[in-house]
């Protein structure tokens, strides 16, 4: 079964001191860089375009196409920004990747910068993960010392400076334009588009913003070629990717596999769902395909191919491939309330529907969680979500509605139970914890 896995980004994670340059180089690290340095920037863009690599941050926009949007006649400098502000509930792929294998990202940055002819690149990391920031900075230092960064890289005449920037811990800064504002030293709030970042991004200059995993996938494509890359995945969703399995599974973790794998296969790899206290295997109740902003799915979706099209056809989104798995002990209402509290806390406040809507949603959900729901609350929730979805300034508001509307779609009876019975009675919280022993004072 394990031959389903295609470890590329994660291939060296078990190596001793995998995060150091010599260890990375032992497995062929920075070979792709040398290849890329011999290529014309336009050819690099074509290569990535032809590979079919799509953005791994959630939206799945073709990476090569994004690069090709950079105007060549703009007098301002071009910037490359790596979005490493991984903050979505359930999403946990970039941080382990940068922790274990920072050099693959650095190498990807250099190649991508060559492709778009940027002389300055930034990695915007969420500030809470100081250990990752340190690893990245160490890797960047090593790359400078090796001549992979700085002036005249490998004698090619190309110059590149790479800055690892620590954010201050706001979910909204994962939104690319809010990230740019934050990187410029302002308060992170999404910008009006147009102008799009490709035309006027960082410091009003042409900017490419890519997810960590997207950029980290580039060296492998340069080295392995597009045929090799296209041999994995599906027709429109090519290549390998990191699936993050978490929740009520026996072996949570990062599973690198071709796009299009199913949750059923991944659960097999992860040892299946956890065992009940009586030894029986627990039942899958619901799961998210790509973090809390993607509409949740149920056991009926176990065989949905986990690629951009497959999950979309099932009514959700591939997102960040953060597969949070919940078994029958979990209260959907409580779970959705927790997520909604997160969105309320993280709403940047710029636009009305998201700011005020999440404030209201939480109060209705709390009532339902307490068994104090009122007649019409479910319709109210759905209507509020309808007034937020597609009306907000950015996708944060849209994401906040996804768990609610999908949960009501599949588990309406649980919300109805919220009219009279607290969730803690229907689903005692202790039963769904992964560490079920009572904590005493």
């Amino acid at each position, binding site marked *: 079964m394990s031959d389903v896995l295609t470890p590329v980004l994660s291939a060296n994670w078990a190596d001793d001191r995998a995060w150091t340059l010599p260890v990375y180089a032992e497995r062929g690290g920075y070979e792709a860089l040398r290849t890329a340095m011999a290529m014309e920037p336009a050819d690099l863009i074509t290569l990535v375009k032809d590979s079919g690599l799509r953005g791994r941050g959630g939206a799945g926009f073709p990476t090569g196409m994004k690069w090709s949007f950079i105007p060549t006649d703009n007098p301002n400098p071009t910037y490359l920004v790596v979005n490493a502000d991984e903050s979505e509930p359930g999403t946990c792929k970039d941080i382990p990747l940068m922790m274990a294998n920072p050099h693959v990202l650095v190498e990807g940055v250099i190649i991508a910068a060559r492709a778009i002819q940027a002389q300055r690149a930034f990695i915007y990391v969420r500030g809470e993960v100081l250990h990752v920031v340190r690893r990245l900075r160490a890797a960047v230092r090593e790359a400078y010392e090796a001549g992979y960064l700085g002036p005249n890289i490998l004698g090619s005449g190309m110059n590149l400076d790479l800055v690892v920037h620590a954010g201050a811990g706001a979910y909204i800064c994962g939104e690319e334009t809010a990230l740019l504002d934050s990187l410029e030293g302002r308060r992170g709030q999404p910008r009006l588009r147009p102008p799009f970042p490709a035309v006027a991004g960082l410091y009003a200059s042409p900017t490419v913003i890519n997810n960590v995993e997207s950029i980290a996938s580039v060296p492998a494509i340069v080295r392995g070629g597009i045929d090799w890359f296209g041999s994995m995945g599906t027709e429109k969703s090519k290549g390998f990717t990191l699936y993050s399995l978490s929740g009520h599974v026996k072996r949570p973790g990062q599973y690198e596999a071709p796009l299009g794998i199913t949750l059923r296969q991944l659960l097999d790899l992860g040892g299946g769902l956890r065992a009940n206290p009586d030894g029986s295997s627990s039942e899958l109740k619901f799961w998210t395909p790509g973090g809390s902003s993607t509409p949740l799915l149920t056991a009926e979706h176990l065989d949905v191919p986990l690629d951009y099209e497959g999950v979309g056809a099932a009514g959700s989104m591939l997102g960040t491939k953060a597969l949070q798995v919940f078994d029958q002990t979990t209260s959907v209402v409580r779970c959705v309330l927790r997520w909604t509290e997160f969105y309320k806390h993280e*709403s*940047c*406040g710029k636009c*009305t529907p998201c700011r005020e809507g999440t404030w209201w949603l939480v109060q209705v959900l709390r009532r339902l969680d307490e068994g104090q729901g009122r007649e019409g609350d479910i319709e109210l929730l759905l209507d509020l979500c309808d007034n937020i979805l597609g009306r907000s300034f950015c996708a944060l508001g849209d994401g906040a509605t996804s768990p609610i509307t999908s949960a009501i779609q599949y588990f309406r009876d649980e919300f109805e139970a919220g009219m009279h019975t607290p969730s803690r009675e229907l689903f005692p919280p202790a039963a769904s914890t992964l560490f079920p022993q009572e904590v005493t004072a």
Partner: protein
Amino acid sequence: MTVDQSGHDVHEAELPVEMVTLTIDDVSVSVPKGTLLIRAAELIGVEIPRFCDHPLLEPVGACRQCLVEVPDAGNGRGFPKPQASCTLEVAEGMVARTHLTSEVATKAQVGTMEFLLINHPLDCPVCDKGGECPLQNQAMSHGRGESRFTETKRTFPKPVPVSAQVLLDRERCVLCARCTRFSEQIAGDPFIALVERGAEQQVGIGPNIDGGDEPFHSYFSGNTIQICPVGALTSADYRFRSRPFDLVSTPAVAEHDSCGAAIRVDHRRGRVMRRLAGDDPEVNEEWITDKDRFAFTWSGGDDRVRTPLVRNAETGELEPASWPAALATAARLLQQVHGSAGVLPGGRLTLEDAYAWSKFARLALGTNDVDFRSRAVGAGEADALAAAVAGVPASVTYRDLERARHVVLVGLEPEDEAGTLFLRLRKAVREHGTKVITVASHRSRGTTKLQARLVQVVPGNEAVALADLELGPDDVLLAGERLGLVPGGLAAAVEATGRSGARFAWVPRRAGDRGAVEAGLLPNLLPAGRPVVDAEARADLAAAWDVNAVPGTVGRDTAAIIAGVADRTLRGLLVGGVEIADLPDPALARAALAAADVVVSLEVRHSEVTAVADIVLPIAPMVEKPGTFVTWDGRRRSFDAVLDEPNSVTDTRVLAGIAEELGRPLGFRTIAGARDDLASLGGWDGTRADLPAVRREPVVPAAGQLVLSTWRQLIDDARGQDGQPEYSATARPPVLRASAATWDAHGVIPGEVATLTAPGRDLRVALPTEVDDLPDGVIWAPGNNGTNLRELGLGHGSAVQVTSGGLA
């Protein structure tokens, strides 16, 4: 080419405008390319509800109230989601549906409105904005009848003073960011910003270096109150004072500078409650200074002169008198000094009143000893005004500033002295790429905000610097009041523009200054640009006035009139609205008033002049009379009386009364009459006064002496700003500025107090010091914050001394 009513050439860019045709609610409309959908809808009479949108601010798309459905973006494809019409540019063939024809748009708008109201206190009955509130109005027109929200609202302690003048009730705020965008984009004073996130987001002020709060420092802060679409921002002055529906609104013109900003005066039962910015795209757009907005109580205090007063010869006290008795007495006294009376009408008159003063001086008093400049006067200034300003159609408009390549400021600090002009210049710089050059001692905060290039001069050396200035035909030179004080300064500016084809405008400080020049309130100048020395001009005027002759010798200017009265060459003074402390030498002016045989004062309020006058004739303040101000750009800004006060009379009526008693009537008694009389004179197409010789003598400070750079800041201690303590509290704290080397040379540690002394004066000024980029040997001090520097005999370019430490 067309000509607008002010006589300006209207030379709009004749480039063809590319039009775009789209369909909104099934109505086809063509609009210029780049128009926002929300504006295009306005053109067909569809008002889409909005909060964050403001036509003079950059679009932000934050409130999401203006959502519409766009089934076709112009490319055959529609937007899957409702679009914010305030950020969406129209496209050829676009189809848009608003709440009038789209269920989707209606639901989106109603939904957003409901969200906006959930955390709003709905305290309309006690809110200043209630009755004129966009939130209230649009909640009625585009909201649900009843809210479904029964949960807990977000609350805040209230209110937060963001400055002494502007208060913030955070719970009312809908976070549209109009105030913060105004402050950053229009005023350039980003002292308020949105802070926190989610529903806790709020308008905040920053911490200052002392750990306290940094208040909202801006001369334009009041505009945020006016553009706030809810009652979140209120003024400390107007808060809880009145309801909009109790107010009577009258359009008027601001009287504090020469900009002619359109304002709206709201009064209730005979009392002005507040002033708001009017909307005039050619002048002030929708913005005014805080001075224009808040400084209106000066004429409403207890010190108004309510009846004519005649000094009792026996008791020496002023006693109330009837109007006929007072006018007759005034005529009798002035007859005694006929031919030896000086006339100081002040610089705040309307054009009509100024004309009445001018005609009165020539006809009734038979003198050219008249000067509107109740301030220091410069050598050659009056001649330059006669040659290049009087009767000359202005060649620069506000809009021209946006088209200019360079705008050169000489002796002018627009932010302090002409706030409306400052905002337009800032717009020109930000949106049209105009470059500002300031010929000054240093870059002030105002010129810094204009990104001005500094041509650094020691005060007094402006004329020297102008000689080296290369200008082009697309450039504009704006000369301020202080350039007139520099010997030959104005002439040098006129010469510099004439040489290069650039355009010249004189930007005086007071509202009446430009009109006074037109009316001939100068010793060398008759009405409408007629030079006194020109016999033909005098004959022309005498014929129009139906008199044998008008005085033919050039009279005395302000300084000479005062000196003449003091040394008893002159025996009488007719004074209107002049502050003694503003005059070139206040001590000498006081001595002159004491020495004069006759002092007749036309005044609104009791003053130093009325205290010694023989007769005090109360006149109407601006709010109680009609009139016209002539702006720096030559625009005639007429206004009607706001308050109908039957006992309040104009300068014109008073002077006409005295003239009739003297048997030399003016020929009119009313403002309309004065206006017609002036109009019937026509312009002067004869020989103009010669431009005085340009003098370029560099100032070289004597050893141990410093040269003073000074001007009056917008908010200062002038009496026209009395009665508004919250407004006055927003004045910039007075400091002395000089270079580090200058401070060092005088033993002053920057940040500590230093004392300014004038040679031969007892009075001194002690203020905190700051280092600024001034030329060595130059020190800057505010003109009238705490102390009126004129009381020390000090002005622009004066020699001063400075010592470390405060007043002993």
